[in-house]
């Protein structure tokens, strides 16, 4: 079972929905078999084995009454599941905004601040998480199959999804509303963590990006600045404060690149920098083919130090 399956559940909601799925599938199968058997009997039956009255009774009971009862039971049984879990006072509020084709993530801190990240959502196990979902450009949909159902992200609105993780691990989410050329390439990693580890991680995210220490990383930082990367991307603690693209302050702590589509590595970083439009059609990042491959690699080396 992959990290993105609705059956590899790690959340309260998803587990309920998995059970509901299994229940409805089994019942559906039974109903299908009954209908198929009735059809077979009907075709095999000789003329007038049931008369008009018998036939009408069949229509009344099997066609109308029994379905009404079954559906009413289904509705009543599933009504509680339509009520979302309530967000309690110590719920962690996470803002996620869909952008073409990546995720802007913000963790609200008790002091009213926000810690900005991108393309990865980390949540503590056992604590209620209150996602505030919005969209920057077009409609997207926020879906972590193992955690809960999906909620659309609609420009001009803020939707909520309240969920609670039950099991630590690495999972995957993906955009579920068609949003353009790279809709298929808009995923993200989801990390459910032990609460203490989560708090430590969040604290680390609060700090500025580490300054480059090795000569090559320093040269990479200079190239990063000279080529105007900071116009779109922010690196906390430096002059780079762009908000158009994903935040890079701690990019190297993430395991994937390009919104969950390729593993984090120097080679892939270089490929993305030089050829973003072919790695990700329709992305706003232009190609940097005019940069010397060595310079691209140097920038990639710098980014790799942003832990």
């Amino acid at each position, binding site marked *: 079972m992959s990290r993105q*399956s609705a059956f590899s559940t790690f959340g309260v909601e998803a587990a309920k929905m998995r059970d509901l*799925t299994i229940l409805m599938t089994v019942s559906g199968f039974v109903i299908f078999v009954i209908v198929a058997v009735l059809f077979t009997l009907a075709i095999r039956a000789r003329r007038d084995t049931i008369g008009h009255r018998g036939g009408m009774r069949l229509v009344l009971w099997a066609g109308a009454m029994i379905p009404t009862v079954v559906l009413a039971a289904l509705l009543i049984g599933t009504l509680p599941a339509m009520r979302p879990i309530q967000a309690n006072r110590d719920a962690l509020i996470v803002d996620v905004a869909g952008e073409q084709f990546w995720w802007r993530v913000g963790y609200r801190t008790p002091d009213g601040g926000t810690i900005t990240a991108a393309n990865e959502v980390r949540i503590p196990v056992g604590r209620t998480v209150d996602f505030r979902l919005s969209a920057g450009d077009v409609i997207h949909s926020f879906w972590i199959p193992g955690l809960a159902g999906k909620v659309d992200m609609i420009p001009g609105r803020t939707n909520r999804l309240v969920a609670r993780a039950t099991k630590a691990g690495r999972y995957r989410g993906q955009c579920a509303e068609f949003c353009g050329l790279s809709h*298929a390439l808009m995923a993200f990693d989801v990390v459910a963590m032990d609460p203490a580890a989560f708090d430590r991680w969040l604290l680390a995210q609060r700090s500025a990006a580490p300054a480059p220490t090795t000569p090559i990383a320093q040269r990479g930082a200079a190239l990063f600045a000279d080529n105007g990367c900071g116009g779109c991307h922010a690196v906390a603690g430096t002059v780079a404060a762009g908000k158009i693209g994903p935040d890079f302050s701690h990019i190297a702590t993430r395991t994937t690149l390009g919104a969950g589509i390729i593993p984090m590595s120097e080679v892939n970083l270089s490929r993305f920098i030089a050829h973003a439009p072919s790695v990700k059609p329709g992305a706003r990042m232009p190609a940097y083919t005019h940069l010397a491959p060595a310079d691209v690699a140097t920038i990639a080396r710098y980014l790799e130090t942003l832990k």
Partner: protein
Amino acid sequence: MSLHAQDDANLRAAQEERLRAVWKPPSGWFFRWTDVNNNRVGMWYTLTAFGFMLFAGVLALIMRAQLAVPANDLVTASTFNQLFTLHGSMMMFLFAVPMFEAVSIILLPQLLGARDLPFPRLSAFGYWSFLIGGVFVAGSIFFNVAPDGGWFMYPPFTTRTDLAGLGADIWMLGLSFIEVSSVAAAVELIVGVLKCRPPGMRLNLMPLYAWYILVVAVMILFAFPPLIAGDVLFELERLLGWPFFDPAKGGDPLLWQHLFWIFGHPEVYIVFLPSIALFAMIVPTFSQRHILGYPWIVLAAVGTAFLSFGLWVHHMFATGLPKISLAFFSAASEAVAIPTGVQIFVFIATLWAGRVVFSTPLLYCLGAIAIFVIGGLTGVMVAVAPFDWQAHDTYFIVAHLHYVLIGGTLMPLFGGLYYYWPLITGKKLSDRMGRTAFWILFVGANLTFFPMHITGLLGMPRRVFTYPAELGVDGLNLASTIGSYLFAAGVLVIVIDLALSPKRAKAPRNPWNAGTLEWLAHPDDEDWGIRSVPLIESRYPIWDQRDFVAKVDEGRFFLPDAEEGRRETIITTTLDARPAQVIRLGTPSVIPMITAVALGSVFILTTYHLYWLALGGAVATLAAVLVWLWSTAEIPEKPEKPIGHGIVLPLYRSGPAAPGWWAMFITMLADATAFSGLVFGYYFFWTVHPNFPPSGPGMDGPGAFWPMVAMALTLVSWATTVAARELNARGQVGAARALLSLGLAVTLASLFAGLAGPWFSDLAPKLHVYPAIVWTLAIWTAAHAGVGVICQAYTLARSLAGRMTSEHDADIRNITVYFHFLALTAIVTYATIGLFPSAS
């Protein structure tokens, strides 16, 4: 003409000669295309829709090839998005709905024992519009500019001209054009069912297919207009920058979703109910008995139609709507399974009570029902909101909808093809090839779509051009791809079977021993449709009425002749089908084609922003329509004629007794529905904004004065029209003309007064959604006033030309219907824009 007269073989031969001459199709390489007879127009329509289906199917095969393996690069993301958008849009707008209308155009006159539909030229116009619009939309993919925003076209992705290019306009304008032709066909079919039934065929004796045509056409009438309203707002945003869906300027993307799905969900039943209708014809034939529970199945169809308008929100479960509304729409969505269950059990009971003759069409029906039931069961699953939050926009839905559409549209159509082919061509298709094709299709469909349920729940979203191996769905996807090519092979077998058909020998008449009226058709059929229009006393007259076929053939029923050399059919009363009138039908003409080309040019030229040329096209359309109308409602050479058995019917009726009046009334219902879509937009914005209407420069207006003036003027023009109708009927023709002239001036004044409000208050439609929606309502109403002016001028001209008199007053009665609706539109518009702001 007594029964005895028809004993004379010479008389019969002479009658047949006259009928043949009257119904002779036009010939010549061009003029053969000016035909309007339902058999030929219906056949063109069917073949064209079938062609679009094959085309859209090939698009799907390319998609399946791309998705056969993970991270494939057979096609680019851009191509893939065009492929799935066009596949869905074409299957819905160019195949499923038109196919229903096409088949109905062929079958309806036969089912009703009519010579043709009441407005043959309207059918031809619908066909040419469909062909032009369809080729325009489908052809765009060869220029790499096909629509690529999904068949649902959600803004703001699709309204942003930097993200969605020409394709979005092609979708909106090309398909709007086709929607117009779909509504035209719906009007024709409704009037056909209500007014063209044979004497004695009361509503409760109607063949079930006719019932379903009525139900589905009424659904089209109310479902398509909200989409047309949405299209209007959508193009105003794209072409003029009016921000209906732009949240930065007060718009809301969700308005589009509401309008789209108010259309989109009934649409599902619009394409599904006709298939139930086919079952309802096929199952009794092969059970060799009447359908069991006729009133039940009719009520179930009506119930399904009714409920289907209350379910649209289940397409929006994930949009964050209030949970209480989700519960309501979950309940409604589950409830629609009940009438569907009734319809399916009616078939089970009928088969059970009858003696089943196994045949190829029945095999398709049963296979289709098996597939459909699976789709219905997964439909109940997705009606449960919490499950839908997982399944929505994943391959689970792709599986569900294809089970529904293959089981509920495509397979029944193939069954209907094998069933009705002898009716249309006089030849049977091959049983062997039909059954071979069936099993290939059945296995192919299940192999393609069953795995997709799992694919979706394993985390694969819809509309992705590729997927990573990490998802663990490669095996399932490969199975789906293999299945899809298998399915295509099944379709190919059917196509070959059809291609071999011309070489085969004719089948006997009524080869399935069916009991319904349409099987009167003779393998060597003539174009006149039916030899004489029968008196109906049973739902299955061929089985139940003595010597029925012979009596029809020998012209012993009604209207066996064409003495005056005119195409005619009988009009009966709406409920109990008493003969009421003989109408003269439209003959072959180039005018429907010209009108379609002119109207098509308006839509197509607008796509390319060639507004002046488009305006020229609009003027040409208006001219063509006026020329067309001028020949209608002609004053007959004598007031009445005998139709046999001592019955004499008038040749001219006006008002609610005439089909033309009904067509106007029904068209205006559709128009009013589109208008309510726009009004819904106004109040929708009011609900989403805490202070609506807003205030500020460019946003204050339009005041109460001008709207009230416009409302008063419209009401005056309405009153003059009604008064002119009454005076004209009393013989005071001069006074009626004077009132019409006065009304014309007042209507024109109301047009300008309606626009004066937003104009003088400088409402700036690009600034905010409030001025934009006010302008839209004002322009909509003003445009309708403009059409009202044309109506009054036309009626005046008819009166002056002697084509309308005090006895022959169809024109003024029809435009009065228009003015009722215009007055209603004006009251709602001007109260909304003029009074509501001060009330709220």
